[in-house]
């Protein structure tokens, strides 16, 4: 019995860590040579309701640094935002914000 409980416990701990609501996730938008800078700005302003200034800053960061962390939050929210970005044709991925840096 003890032999079988040990792996179960390990798995449970692992699952708990991954689904913990307080683990921050981040939405990364990647640069690509096709998307127009004006369009990326428009998407940031309308989808995230960011100001013109903030949208322009994030867009420039994508353009110059190749990527930008444009939103932070729970895993499910970041995944939903990524799908919305894909709908607009922006190249976006989610990842755990383990650095806790962001933009």
């Amino acid at each position: 019995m003890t032999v079988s409980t040990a792996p179960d416990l390990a798995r449970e701990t692992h699952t708990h860590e991954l689904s913990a609501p307080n683990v921050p996730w981040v939405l990364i938008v990647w640069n690509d040579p096709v998307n127009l800078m004006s369009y990326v700005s428009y998407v940031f302003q309308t989808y995230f309701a960011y100001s013109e200034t903030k949208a322009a800053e994030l867009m420039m960061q994508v353009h110059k640094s190749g990527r930008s962390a444009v939103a932070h939050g729970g895993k499910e929210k970041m995944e939903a935002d990524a799908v919305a970005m894909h709908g607009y044709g922006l190249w976006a991925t989610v990842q755990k914000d383990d650095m806790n840096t962001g933009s």
Partner: protein
Amino acid sequence: MAKAFKYGRKGITGQLEQAERDLLRNLFSDIIDMLEPESAAHTDPLAALIGLDMDVRVPTDPALKRLLPDVVNAEDAESTAMALEFRQLTERSLRENKIGALRAAALNLDSDKMVLNDEQAKFWAMALNDVRLVLGERLSIRGEADADRIHQLQDWSQADDVDSYLALVYNFVSWLQEGLVQAMLLGLKDRG
């Protein structure tokens, strides 16, 4: 070339010539064909309801993959499995949303003078963007230098092979999208 899209009192208006409308109708229809799911909607009603599709695989066509990217950077076995699992849950509805925007934009092409509300303008911007992503992939635009090289081609008398023709089409659609988005940004500013 005159501006195709303008922002004014009526909102966003667009004016395109017959040949331009025919070209766009064909482009929209090509992208819709690419995006139509290969298998019919799932027969399991619950799976169909939530859009779950266990048959979904990562697209092998790089242009289609650019339209339907992975949600995580698939760099090892764990992230590849997570990306595929997420794709099985979401890809069908993403395809349907994109097809919806392309169809909506195609409908506006029936009249030579378009008046677009905010939602229609958004569908147009999305549709033009998807066309550009596919053309960009076919033209192997991988970096800024490629984009600049393609941008040099502006004269239709230079269209002497498939690639130069595609490049000119790409530049036309880019010019159209830029004008549309500028008009949309003016509209946003106007409403503060």
